[in-house]
């Protein structure tokens, strides 16, 4: 949206975009440069020891999670989007709920239930002869199931929207051309929805690659855990950087894949003026089977884990440990709120700058500034700390040269740096809701304000800000919740004493204390349900 206003200089808005983009680019460049300048000794060591296992583990995870979420997401999207069966209305929103469960919470609940001392194996031991069938849970299939159950909603929501957007015309057209419903699904509905499904899968896989909490609970080594271990276990930030560079390449290929398929969507968007949808009414055993299928998925992915969480939490509260986490809640909320405030301010500036000057370069820079969502938290931490150490050292030397005082590190290990990391990671979340609200404001309003002689900043405060309130509120909520659930950045960058709920869960679960982790887990799930409900309300409109 290009607004012509000869009174204001476009230059100043340009600068904001450049500065913000640079902020994101610095960690990226740091990581890429370590990819381009491989350190031979470290590589030789990595290649013989860690790397083959890490690559294999990651490959298994990516293939497994992709297939699992594709099957779950697409089938559920088709049933609730196009078919009609008992409970369809309920399931169409309820099946999005597992998004509220962070993968690491799901992981420790799963382990708690399946553990030797947990309810499942305890139950099995009551049958003589069954005790030999002990389940070895720390294996790839279980990691895949846990990640898949929390991530399938991405594929589900996108494929459902696409099926509904197709309406029934395509499907009916293929029936008149001689295809039965099953053939029509595979030959027409599925290929047309491919861009949406692939975009959903790309998001799922980005989350999979970025996941740190769930895989560390399962002791399943991937790049994220290896980065953490080489930094905090072997104190080799150089090795961590090398590993990060591989992970970032993998993540960006997914980003590219998403971009390619997103650009195809508009060609496939064939509906003119609202598609008509005549639902396929399922009857008899088919209807029963679909209702049962949806119930099982919802049960396993949401109701059972939430129930177990509540049971454990009640145990904790009855044991008098209910108030233990109060200080963690306060810190988590302080961090979340400050990050959200920061991100909202930056989002408004960025979005307004784009509006004032919608040149190609500015739009590219906006995209660049919000690319951090594809960066795994572990990678981001490495990418920020490396240049920061360099800066800090330089600053200390200058200060020492000038005033002869040993200051020690100035920025390292401060909350400020952590907030900066959150900004890079979650700017996309805030920006997308602010920017879509900004795009809903007609450009003629800016022109009208300009005619009355208002400057850019005045227009922003008296015209745009009031109109943006709803979008800003959504952005605030989404960012707060994302920060609350965030684990690796907080774990790796927090100053002493700034443990959040997520960090506490990491500590407790690494000692196998599933029950004690339940209460902070429950808080996270409850917080996580807020954005899901916001999203569902939008979806129902």
């Amino acid at each position, binding site marked *: 949206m290009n607004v012509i206003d000869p009174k204001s200089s476009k230059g100043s808005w340009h600068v904001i975009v450049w500065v913000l983009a640079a902020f994101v680019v610095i960690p990226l460049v740091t990581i890429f440069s370590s990819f381009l300048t491989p350190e031979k000794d470290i590589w030789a060591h990595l290649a013989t020891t860690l790397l083959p296992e890490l690559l294999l583990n990651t490959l298994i995870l990516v293939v497994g999670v992709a297939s699992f979420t594709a099957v779950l997401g697409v089938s559920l999207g088709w049933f609730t989007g196009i078919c009609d069966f008992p409970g369809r209305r309920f399931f169409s929103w309820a099946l999005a709920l597992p998004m509220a469960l962070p993968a690491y919470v799901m992981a420790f609940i799963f382990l708690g239930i399946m553990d030797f001392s947990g309810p499942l194996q305890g139950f099995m031991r009551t049958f003589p002869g069954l005790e030999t069938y002990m389940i070895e849970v720390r294996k790839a299939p279980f990691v895949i199931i846990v990640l898949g159950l929390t991530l399938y909603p991405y594929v589900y929501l996108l494929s459902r929207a696409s099926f509904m957007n197709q309406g029934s*015309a*395509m499907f*009916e*057209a*293929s*029936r*008149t*051309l*001689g*295809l*039965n419903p099953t053939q029509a699904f595979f030959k*027409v509905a599925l*290929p*047309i929805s*491919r861009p949406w499904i692939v975009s959903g899968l790309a998001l799922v896989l980005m989350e999979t690659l970025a996941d740190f909490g769930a895989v560390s609970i399962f002791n399943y080594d991937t790049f994220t855990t290896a980065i953490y271990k080489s930094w905090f276990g072997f104190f080799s930030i150089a090795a961590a950087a090398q590993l990060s560079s591989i992970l970032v390449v993998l993540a960006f290929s997914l980003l590219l894949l998403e971009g390619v398929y997103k650009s195809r969507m508009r*060609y*496939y*968007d*064939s*509906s*003119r003026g609202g*598609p008509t949808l*005549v639902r396929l009414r399922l009857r008899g055993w088919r209807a029963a089977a679909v209702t049962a299928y949806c119930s099982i998925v919802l049960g396993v992915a949401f109701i059972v884990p939430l129930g177990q969480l509540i049971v454990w939490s009640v145990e904790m509260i009855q044991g008098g440990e209910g108030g233990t986490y109060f200080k963690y809640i306060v810190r988590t909320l302080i961090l979340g709120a400050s990050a959200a405030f920061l991100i909202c301010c930056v989002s408004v500036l960025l979005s307004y700058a784009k509006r004032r000057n919608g040149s190609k370069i500015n739009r590219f820079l906006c995209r660049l500034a919000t690319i951090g969502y594809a960066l795994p938290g572990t990678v981001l931490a490495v990418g920020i700390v490396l240049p920061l150490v360099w800066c800090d050292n330089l600053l200390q030397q200058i200060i020492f040269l000038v005033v002869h005082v040993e200051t020690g590190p100035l920025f390292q290990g401060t909350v400020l740096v952590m907030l900066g990391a959150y900004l890079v990671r979650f700017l996309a979340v805030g920006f997308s809701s602010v920017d879509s609200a900004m795009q809903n404001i007609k450009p003629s309003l800016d022109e009208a304000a300009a005619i009355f002689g208002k400057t850019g900043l005045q227009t922003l405060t008296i015209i745009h800000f009031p109109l943006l309130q709803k979008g800003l509120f959504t952005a605030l909520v989404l960012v707060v919740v994302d920060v609350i659930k965030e684990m690796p950045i907080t774990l790796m960058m927090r100053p002493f004493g700034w443990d959040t709920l997520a960090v506490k869960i990491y500590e407790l679960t690494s000692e196998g204390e599933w029950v004690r982790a339940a209460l902070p887990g429950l808080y996270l799930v409850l917080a996580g349900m807020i954005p899901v409900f916001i999203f569902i309300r939008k979806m129902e409109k």
Partner: protein
Amino acid sequence: MMLVDQPLLGVVNVQKSFGQQRVVKGVSLELAKGEIGCLLGPSGCGKTTLLRIIAGFESVQGGRVLIGGSEVSSLATMVPPENRNIGMVFQDYALFPHLSVSENIGFGLGGKDVRAKTQAIDKFVELVGLEDAKNAYPHELSGGQQQRVALARALAPQPSLLLLDEPFSNLDVTLSEKLTVEVRDILKEAGITALMVTHNQFEAFAVADSIGVIFDGVICQWDSAYNIYHSPKTLDVARFVGDGAVIKGVVTGGGQVSCGLGELRGDLSLPCENGCEVELLVRPEDVFHDDGSAVVAEVMHKSFRGSNILYKLKLSTSETCLALVSSHQNHSLGSTIGIVADVGNLVVFPVGTASAGE
């Protein structure tokens, strides 16, 4: 000697309701092989539902549908759409966005013989004149081209019956006028039996052999375009099809009606006794300007149409009628002119029979 042909499409007393609302109320119609029929009616009259019933997307709640003599829909049977040997052109064309023009056209062609398939595709690409756009994708085509692809795709599997759902409604007027003629030629050349649904009478006139005017789930008249226009059977049909005015009159003798346009003579469409009050249909082309006429009317509104002007006139009875006159006769608003009506067929209706259509 031919035996009495079975109709290719038979619809017998079909009923359909959605919830409490009766949408199709006992409709019957027949199409002979090679005949092009059209269901014409305002939106919400049930015509699209009827088409979807024939296609097999909706079930019936009474009556039967027969294609080629075999029953495809009734309370007991419901042959799925893919087994009815029909083709359909959808209102928004429903072209498959992931397939090229030739892939779309070849979609319904079965068989393993690649060469035969390619030949068939080429034949239909040529039939609709899209040789240059063969490898294009739907989003690269204009509205008119998309329409042709949709038609070719539906015709390619050589269905016994072609259904067209408002096929021209997404095109601008000029283009749809051109395409209606083209489509009729293509359908006639293919010798296909077709049923079209539209709310636009000009499309119906241009394409169909027989037209069924449908109101509120009932076919009011099934007839040729000429008869629908000149001999409408009900007031609703008279008002929906073509321009015209309906004015009150009294039958004053055999073939004579007294009304706001004076004493009109002609053949009465209904047998009426003297003194019987009727409503009389007057088409704009039946009313002429004549300075010597004793009947005068006031010009209320006029619209210039190039070769002629359509006047809206106020009669001495305060009723209005339309007159289509040569544009050389330019009368100003508010002026009073003499008019004469020359009606060969007096289309009259009993008073108070209108139910809908306005």
